[in-house]
């Protein structure tokens, strides 16, 4: 029998706990609370019930349970919530983390092995956290001859570009970070940033394998961007709008994949290539060029690029859902909020709690988000699946596929859309 901590003394342990608690409280009081107040000072506070919500008032209201929900409502209406939490970064990062877990377990099942198993009590569910901690704690090594500012900036820019891509995706009616009229054009603009960031990172590392990987990524992304854009033109023609929310709303009766299956297939294939996933993971082909343009990245720089990759994966899957699978549209499965709680309050024995502002989210929003997440997860599953089935293809085959077959199919898709429009099946006077 081994002794885990031979010098363990209970008194010292309790003393260390108390020390930690003391220093934690001291730092909270001296640094944390002033910092919170300073942040609150610069944020434009909302007006609730005719009163301007000052930081002091917010603190007093937080202590009053019946007035928490209006504060939460006001917070949810701010841009910072949308960017950081729900339709934006936090939601996407959560889905991306779930994607990584599902990918590992699914691939393991496909390959007759177990996958992550020990970290966390259930099926290695904390493996991702362990990997993240490892990446954070690792030393970041910069090549001596690297162009340091650009090399440092590239992973951050990559995550920023991926997160701004996420901002365009509408999750539920009215729930989108950036509801712009030229949303699809904005998406194309953001996608156009990725090859630049990749080649910047690859070139600034001043190393041979990243350079080859970066050039490959450049070839791949540039040659697949054209079929990507062309394959989406059909949807734009049919809806007559570039606003992603309007495109999603236009599919209330049927999704566009019914009429434009070729466009959906072309978009799916180009999506795999843009995401550098197998069979199109040439920029990271480890048996040829080590890890491609990620070779010299270490520690959290690599972790940031991985985070950006999975955010991009979520964003592309969400774009596919919005454009072809009907976005948030679906049968109403979420039950309506019980009306008696609003009128009578919650009866808990002798106490009746009346909570103002209770339906935190509307029924449409919950239902839309549910359908969106279900569809997105299904698309992500199909994006992950080829990894277990296909080997990597070669760069000349890839360029041949992109420049001839996919562009041709994208034009066929455009002609189908035009035919549907001129035949009067869709558009004004048609089905909608």
């Amino acid at each position, binding site marked *: 029998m081994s002794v885990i901590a031979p010098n363990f003394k209970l008194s010292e342990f309790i003393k260390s706990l108390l020390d930690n608690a003391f220093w934690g409280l001291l730092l909270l009081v001296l640094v944390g609370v002033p910092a919170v107040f300073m942040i609150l000072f610069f944020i434009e506070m909302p007006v609730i019930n005719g009163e301007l919500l000052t930081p002091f008032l917010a603190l007093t209201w937080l202590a009053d349970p019946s007035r928490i929900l209006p504060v939460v409502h006001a917070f949810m209406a701010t841009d910072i919530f949308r960017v950081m939490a729900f339709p934006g970064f936090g939601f996407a990062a959560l889905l991306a983390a779930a994607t990584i877990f599902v990918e590992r377990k699914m*691939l393991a099942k*496909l*390959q*007759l*092995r177990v996958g992550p198993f020990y970290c966390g009590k259930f099926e290695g569910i904390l493996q991702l956290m362990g990997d993240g901690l490892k990446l954070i704690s690792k030393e970041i090594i910069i090549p001596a001859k690297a162009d340091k500012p650009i090399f440092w900036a590239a992973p951050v820019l990559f995550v920023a570009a991926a997160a701004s891509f996420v901002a365009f995706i509408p999750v539920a009616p009215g729930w989108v970070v950036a509801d712009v009229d030229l949303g699809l054009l904005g998406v194309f603009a953001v996608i156009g940033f990725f090859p630049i960031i990749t080649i910047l990172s690859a070139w600034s590392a001043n190393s*041979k*394998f990243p350079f*080859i990987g970066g050039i490959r990524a450049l070839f791949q992304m540039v040659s697949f961007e054209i079929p990507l854009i062309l394959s989406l033109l059909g949807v734009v023609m049919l809806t007559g709008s570039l606003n992603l929310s309007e495109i999603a709303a236009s599919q209330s009766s049927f999704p566009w994949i019914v009429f434009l299956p070729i466009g959906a297939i072309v978009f799916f294939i180009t999506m795999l290539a843009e995401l550098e996933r*197998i*069979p199109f*993971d*040439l920029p990271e*082909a*480890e*048996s*040829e*060029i*080590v890890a491609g343009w990620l070779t010299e990245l270490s520690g959290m720089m690599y972790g940031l690029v991985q985070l950006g990759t999975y955010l991009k994966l979520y964003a592309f899957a969400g774009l596919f859902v919005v454009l072809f699978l009907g976005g948030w549209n679906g049968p109403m499965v979420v039950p309506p909020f019980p009306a008696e709680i609003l009128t009578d309050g919650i009866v808990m024995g002798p106490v009746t709690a009346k909570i103002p502002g209770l339906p935190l989210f509307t029924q449409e929003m919950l239902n839309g988000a549910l359908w969106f997440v279900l569809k997105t997860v299904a698309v992500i599953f199909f994006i992950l699946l080829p*990894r*277990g*089935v*296909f*080997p*990597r*293809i*070669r*760069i*000349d*085959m890839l360029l041949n596929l992109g420049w001839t077959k996919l562009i041709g199919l994208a034009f066929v898709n455009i002609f189908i859309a035009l035919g549907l429009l001129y035949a009067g099946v869709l558009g004004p006077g048609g089905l909608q």
Partner: protein
Amino acid sequence: MTFNLPPGLALQKVDERIMTLNVGPQHPGSGHMRIIVQIDGDYIVACDPDPGYVHRGEEKMAEYRNYITNIPHLERPVIHDSCNILYPYVLGAEEILGIEVPERAKYVRVIASELNRCIYIMYWLAIYGIFLGHSTMFMWPAGDRELLIDLMEKMTGARVTHAHFVPGGVRNDLPPNFEDVCLRQVNYFEKRIKEYAAVFYDNPILISRTRDTGILSRQDAIRYGTTGSVLRASGVDYDLRVKEPYDVYDELDVHTNVLKEGDSYARSKIPWLDMMESCNIIRQALQKMPKSGSVRVKLKPNPKGKGLNSVYKRVESGRGSLGCYIVSDGKTEPYRVKLSVPSFRNLIALPNLLRGEKLGNMPSVYWSLNYWPVEADR
């Protein structure tokens, strides 16, 4: 004053377009060796394989150990194919020591050798799969290989480095009930490897990637002296189990798999077909094997060779013809042991196969040569 330097030492003119890549020894796609590749854009203009990173002096070590103690270290160059790399040495040592091997031992050796060939090819196939970016083809062979490794463990007591063949037979008799277990495992194994066709060998992406890449013509294959699967993939019907049968291979029906294309795809398919052939041979050997009898001739503690003589024996290993040349001067240790390994011979073809290929084809062409870096260095 001008110097006329030999071509290898002359300074080369630096071309701005040419980039030199050191693929290995610390590279996921090289193994324990270095391939110096010069590329122009995506095309390989020159390739210089540079083995020698794992040279361990096995041949020199063999001169200081007697005929029995040579066994555990001579199998080290290819631990996954340890029975087959010992086979020629054991055959030669038997001739030098003048030993006649019992009939049952010969069958046991054939079974062990064929099982080990499958174990080696599965490992090779796993790496071929991951070199092409096919992670399922890495995991499946690595997992199914366990079936045969368990079988070898029952048979020899060790999972990988068996040291099972000794001059005069094999070290231990088969465990009881081995025949039934072996037959069952081998049948399941064969059924399992046939499933690889659906996911790997009939995969359209794999075929389009490896077809017509790294073509080795029949004449070149013979001229470079390649052996084994590389030679048979180029249309040469050459298998030592049929052409120069050793032990009891002449009593068994061995079919040689030959493909005519000579490209990476054919070279990668031949070992897979060979595994099915090995399963056939094992079934035949299990049927024809004498059910009882000795498996080992008792030797004197420190046997001496018979005077000054030399012997060259070769067998068909997982990679091709593997030869062992033993010179004896009548002492307890051999005077010289020389291994003629198939890996090194197959590697000779690599620069010519890679010239003009694309960089993306390098891993598939390189590993389709059925090459094991440690064996080439000895």
